[in-house]
Structures are given as C-alpha cells and as structure tokens.
C-alpha cells in the first residue's frame, strides 16, 4: 500500500499542477527571454560605437531586472521557493555611470543566466513534458483511433485490431498518472534550487551590511573613465579616418573623395560623444541639458549642410528646414531653462541664506544659553551658597556667640541682596520686561538712562514692530552701547532708531577711538541674531573717527 501510495504520490500532490504550470510557462518565457537577450545584446553592442547602443544596453539591464522579478514571483508561487528581490541599488546619474552600475550589478548577470537557462533547459523540459503527456494521452485514447478507422503504429508495432489497441490503454494511463507527474516533480525539484540560487537577492548569511556609498569619489571616477572613453573613441575615429584615406589614396586617388561620407558620420558621432562627456564644472543640470541639446542640434545641422555640400551644392538649400526646426526647439528649451533657472537660482540662494542664518541663529542661541549658565553659576548661585553657609554658621553660633551670629546674619543679608541685584541684571539681559510691556522706545529710554555714557536718544517708531524685531533691535543698541562704554573711550553716543515703512533702521554712533572689531564675540552673535530675522548689521568707523553700528531689520507682515 505504502509503495503504491509512494508511487502515485506526485499525482496526488497538490503541488504538481502548480509545477506543471511552471514548467509549461517555460515555453513562451524561454523563447521570449532568448529573443530579448539576443536582440538586446546584438543591438546594444552593435550600436555601442554610436551613442545609441548605450541606452539600449541600459534598457536591456532594466528589462533583465523586470524579467527576474517576474520569474522570481513565478518560482515563488509555483515552485514554493522563497527568493527575495535584491536590495534596490541607487541609480546613478549619467548614461555611462548607469551602464557601469548595471554591469557591476551581479543580480543582472544572474538574471541573464537564469533567462538563458530558462531557454536552454526550461524549454526542452517543457517540450519533454508536453511530448510525454501527449504520448500517454495518445496511447490511452488508442481505441478511439481504432474506431475512427485509423491505424496507428506504436514502437514499430502495427495496431490493427481492437485488442491490440486496448492493450496499450493501461500503458498510456500509467504514463499519464505516473510518468508525467514524476517527470514534473523531478524537473521542479531540480529547478527550485537553481531558481533560488540565481534569483534570490538576499546577501549571504552573516555578511556585513553594505557601507553607504561615497558619492563624490564615485562620481569623479566615472567622470574620469568617461573622459578615457572619449579619448579611445577619438583615437578609433582617427584610426578609421586614416585607414579610409589610405584606402582611397591606394585605390581611387584623384577620384571623388568618397571617404568624406563615412568621415562625416564618424565626426558626428564623436562630436555628440564629446558634448555629452565634456562638461564645465558647476553648470546646473538644466543649463547642461540645454547645452547638450544646442550642441547636438548644431552638429546635426553641420552634418546636413555637409551632406548638401557634397551632394547638391548650389541647388535648393534643403537643410534650411532642419536648421529652422532644431533652432526653434533649442530656443524654446532655452527660454524654459533660463526662466526656470532664474526662479530656481533665486530659491537656491534663499535656501543658502536660510541654511546659514538658521545655523547662525542656533549657534547664537546656544552661546547665549552658555553665557547665562555661566553667569548664574558664577554669580547668583555662588552668592546663594555663601548666604546659606553664613546662615548655617549663624544658627550654630546662635546660643554660644550671639554677636558673631548677628554678624553672620548681616553678611547673609547683604549677600542675598547682591544675589537679587545680579539676578535682576541677568533677567534684564535675557529680556527686559519693559520691552514687552511698553515697547522699544521705553526700553531704549531705560537703557539710555542706565548707561554710563551720555546717550542722545532719537526714536521714531510709530507702529510697534513684532516682538522678535523689537528684541533684536534692543540688543543691537545694548551691545553697541556696552562696546562703546568698554572699548571706545567715548563720551557721547548718539542712538537713532526709526521705523521707515516696513523697515526698522538703527544707528549707534559714538565719538570714541573707533576701530571696533566686527569679529568680536558680541557683534558676531548680534549679527547672527539680526540675519536670522533677514536683517543686516554693519560695524565701521564713522567720518569723525568713532564707531558706527548700523542695523536694518524688516518688520514686514
């Protein structure tokens, strides 16, 4: 029983129909892949000397990927393999780089091997299955043939009686029930590991993760190899030209210069190649495409003019039409690119500015927080420590030495008041409350009032700017005044702040010695703060020698 079960197991196996479908799919697919590979490679390589071959080869690579994907899902669904698609590789820019990328992609080569196997082994296997099944079917149906009045010959045996025909029926049934399923199972069993090996894209077990690509180095290498390719192309063209001219000289010297025709064609190809490969650095992509377009159009027109000169010079100048048509196309392209480019360049510039000022603002903010932390640590915190110490000691001495305790308490009291003063200064340095409450004019008046120098303040701010602008303006003046007091030996400072339309203009001019360092820490932080608000800040010497700090801040809505 078990032996019989084992014998008919493939017939009862639900996987057998699936495997049959897979084997049969080899008929159309094997042929299709073979045609695809043969045409792709011969066209691609045949035209590779011209530029047309390269895109064909690239398309072939893509087609191989597609074919592998189809075959992978077929094998997974019908044979039960678990092949996975390979990890996506980045598609580089440029024709040659893409070509190199796929040539160096092992998945593409494995896919092609599989496609060839599908043709070389899969197709015969399918044919064999079909043939065996037809043979079995034919034998099983032999009596019907007989009834139909047709005689048949099986293995050199003339079937001319019903008994003879009936004798073959079990043989036919056995073939259908046993031989065909076993053949299918055998093919499937042999095929599955092959499919797995060639179609699975998983990295081998334990392989380290791929490092991220290094785009810059990669790119320059491709550019280098592209130039080498151009050099080879030029050398080959030159060689061909020499050979052609030599042949012409040896055979039909003095006759019509027929090598001009192939030479023109070769020159056209070489020119096109050079256009694509040679690039000026720093040209944006859109502009570069336009250059190639214009160059190719010019080359083609030159070629046609050459043809005209060689064939019907002096006659109707027919290349005029291509010149007009290609010229118009280039002009339209140029219009689009240049229009788009100004817009894009504007945006790129804006992005640059935003990137710079954003990081500047973040730096300035971080520096400010560090300063505050330092001030707290060295100032109020230290004072509170001293205060707590004094109070602690006073408590211990309270009973034994009330006089000393009183002195300590008095000291702690003073310390507490000093801490208050420091904290107030620190808070004002972060953001003066009067600025929020009463605006820039009041805050500047207060600033001028507490400054050691004589400050002449002129303000004209009809409408309050947004809070961030007010704060920036306040700290521009505060820093400029502090610098004037610290470094300039000035006696008077003139501060003028005016809102003109949507701009807030600030000028702080002192009568000191000038020569302020615009790279000083305070001024750099201030400039970053101003620039983050799309404003500008300048520091320079005034006509009378003092320092002038000017700032302009947009208050736009």
């Amino acid at each position: 029983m078990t032996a019989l079960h084992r014998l008919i197991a493939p017939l009862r196996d639900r996987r057998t129909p699936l495997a049959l479908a897979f084997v049969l799919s080899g008929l159309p697919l094997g042929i299709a892949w073979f045609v695809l590979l043969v045409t792709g490679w011969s066209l691609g390589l045949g035209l590779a000397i011209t530029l047309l071959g390269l895109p064909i080869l690239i398309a072939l690579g893509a087609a191989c990927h597609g074919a592998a994907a189809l075959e992978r899902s077929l094998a997974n669904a019908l044979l039960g393999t678990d092949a996975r698609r390979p990890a996506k590789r980045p598609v580089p820019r440029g024709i040659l780089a893409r070509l190199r990328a796929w040539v160096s992609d092992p998945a593409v080569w494995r896919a092609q091997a599989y496609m060839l196997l599908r043709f070389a082994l899969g197709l015969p296997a399918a044919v064999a299955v079909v043939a065996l099944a037809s043979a079995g079917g034919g034998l099983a149906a032999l009596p019907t043939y007989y009834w139909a009045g047709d005689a048949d010959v099986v293995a050199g045996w003339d079937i001319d009686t019903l008994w003879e025909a009936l004798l073959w029926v079990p043989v036919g049934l056995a073939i259908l029930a046993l031989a065909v399923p076993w053949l299918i199972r055998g093919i499937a069993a042999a095929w599955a590991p092959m499919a797995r090996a060639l179609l699975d894209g998983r990295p081998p077990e334990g392989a380290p993760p791929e490092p991220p690509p290094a785009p810059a180095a990669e790119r320059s290498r491709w550019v280098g190899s592209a130039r080498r390719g151009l050099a080879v192309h030029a050398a080959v063209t030159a060689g061909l030209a020499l050979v052609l001219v030599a042949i012409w000289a040896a055979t039909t010297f003095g006759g019509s210069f027929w090598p001009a025709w192939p030479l023109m064609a070769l020159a056209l190809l070489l020119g096109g190649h050079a256009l694509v490969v040679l690039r000026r650095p720093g040209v944006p992509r859109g502009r570069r495409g336009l250059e190639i377009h214009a160059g190719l159009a010019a080359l083609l027109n030159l070629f046609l003019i050459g043809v005209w000169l060689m064939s019907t010079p002096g006659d109707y100048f027919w290349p005029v039409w291509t010149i007009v048509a290609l010229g118009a196309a280039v002009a339209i392209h140029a219009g689009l690119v240049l229009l788009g480019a100004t817009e894009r360049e504007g945006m790129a510039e804006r992005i640059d500015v935003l990137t710079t000022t954003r990081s500047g603002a973040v730096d300035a903010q971080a520096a400010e927080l560090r300063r505050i932390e330092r001030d707290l640590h060295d100032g109020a915190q230290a004072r509170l420590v001293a205060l707590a110490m004094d109070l602690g000691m006073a408590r211990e001495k309270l009973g034994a030495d009330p006089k000393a305790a009183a002195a300590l308490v008095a000291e702690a009291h003073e310390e507490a008041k000093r801490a208050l003063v420091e904290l107030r200064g620190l808070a004002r340095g972060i953001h003066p409350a009067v600025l929020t409450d009463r605006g820039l004019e009041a805050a500047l008046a207060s600033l001028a009032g507490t400054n050691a120098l004589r400050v002449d303040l002129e303000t004209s701010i009809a409408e309050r700017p947004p809070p961030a602008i007010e704060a920036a303006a306040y700290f521009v003046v505060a820093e400029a005044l502090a610098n004037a007091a610290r470094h300039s030996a000035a006696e008077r400072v003139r501060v003028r702040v005016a809102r003109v339309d949507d701009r807030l203009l600030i000028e702080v001019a002192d009568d000191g010695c000038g020569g302020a360092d615009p790279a000083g820490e305070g001024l750099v932080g201030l400039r970053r703060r101003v620039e983050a608000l799309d404003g500008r800040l300048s520091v320079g010497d005034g006509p009378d020698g003092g320092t002038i700090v000017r700032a302009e801040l947009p208050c736009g809505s």
Partner: protein
Amino acid sequence: MRVVIAEDLALLRDGIVRLLRDNGFEVVAAVEDGDALVRAVEEHRPDVAVVDVRLPPTFRDEGLRAALEARRRVPGTAVLVVSQYVEQTYALELMADGRGAVGYLLKDRIADPADFVEAVRRVASGGTAMDQEVVLQLVARRGRGGRLDELTAREREVLNLMAEGRSNAAIAGALVVTEGAVEKHISNIFGKLGLAPSDEDHRRVLAVLAYLRAE
C-alpha cells in the same frame, strides 16, 4: 494704618502681610490681581496700597495700571508700587498727576524691613518714595550739560536722596552731616535749578521730581 496689598506670589504676599502687621499696620485686604485691587481700594479706602507691578492675567504692568485706576477712582489714595525691576517710564507715569503720595521701589528693598516700612508710612502720609535706581535713571535722563552739571558732588548726593523722598533729617543721617548743612545744600540746589523754595519736605521733593520729570 490700613493697607491693601496686591501681590500674586503667595510667598511674597504672606511675607509683606506679616512684615506690615508686625509693624502695626492693619492689612484690610490682600488680593492677587488688578481688578481685585481696584475693588478693594473702593471698598476699604485704605491709607495706602502696596502693589506689585506684574500681576495676572497678563503679567505685564497690570498692577501699575490698576494702581493708577484706583487712584483715579478714589483720589488721594496713596500707592506704593513694588517690582523686580524699576523703569523710569513707570515712575513718570506714577508721578504724572504731581500730587505725591506715590512710591516706586524695587522688591529688593523689602529685604531691609525698617527702610521699607518707613517708605510705606511716608507714602501713606502723602510723601514720596522713589527707588534710588529710578532717581539715577531720571537724573541720567535729564541729561548732562544742563543745569544739573552746575551742582557739586555733595549737592548731587543731596538731590538724589531728596528725589528718593527722604526728609531732611534722613538725608542728614545718611550723609552724616547736620540738618543745617542739608538745608544749605538744598537751598543751593533750588537756586541753581531755578526752583521756588519751600519749607516743607514733601513739597521740596515734588519740586525736585517735577524738575527731573520735565522734558
């Protein structure tokens, strides 16, 4: 003396209440925001209101505005405004009616209870209490190159103490001179600044503040 207190921070409010009660004041109301202050002043008619500048809901100058509003509704209400920081702008607004009975002090001053209590009493009795930092700001605002430049260093000190609202006796004590010497300095100051002389401390203070306040 009856006091109304407006301070939103419980820690400080309780401290001030305790301090004033310890010194014989009657705290008739301790409120947390400006509207409540105005209502309390209207209801209790206190001798003085002690008000924090920064109060809910805006935490800006709510207290100052409420104090001015209370003074408008109940004329003659003495107001002592306290703040973590002082601004000459606020001082000028407080002094705008020129009637005195106003004070404007840093909260730091509460740390010297005797001085603070003295200032509350002074304001309650119609006098003035300006923080020394405010006075410095006001003097600076008046600018150099004007008549203030004609004052001697000692006269300047006297002027600043006067502007703070201190009495002649207090100024004499602070500078360790006799009251007569202070009188002499004051008459010199008034002469140099072109102010009309006056015998009463309060009036002199107002005259000095009016001079500093003027544009």
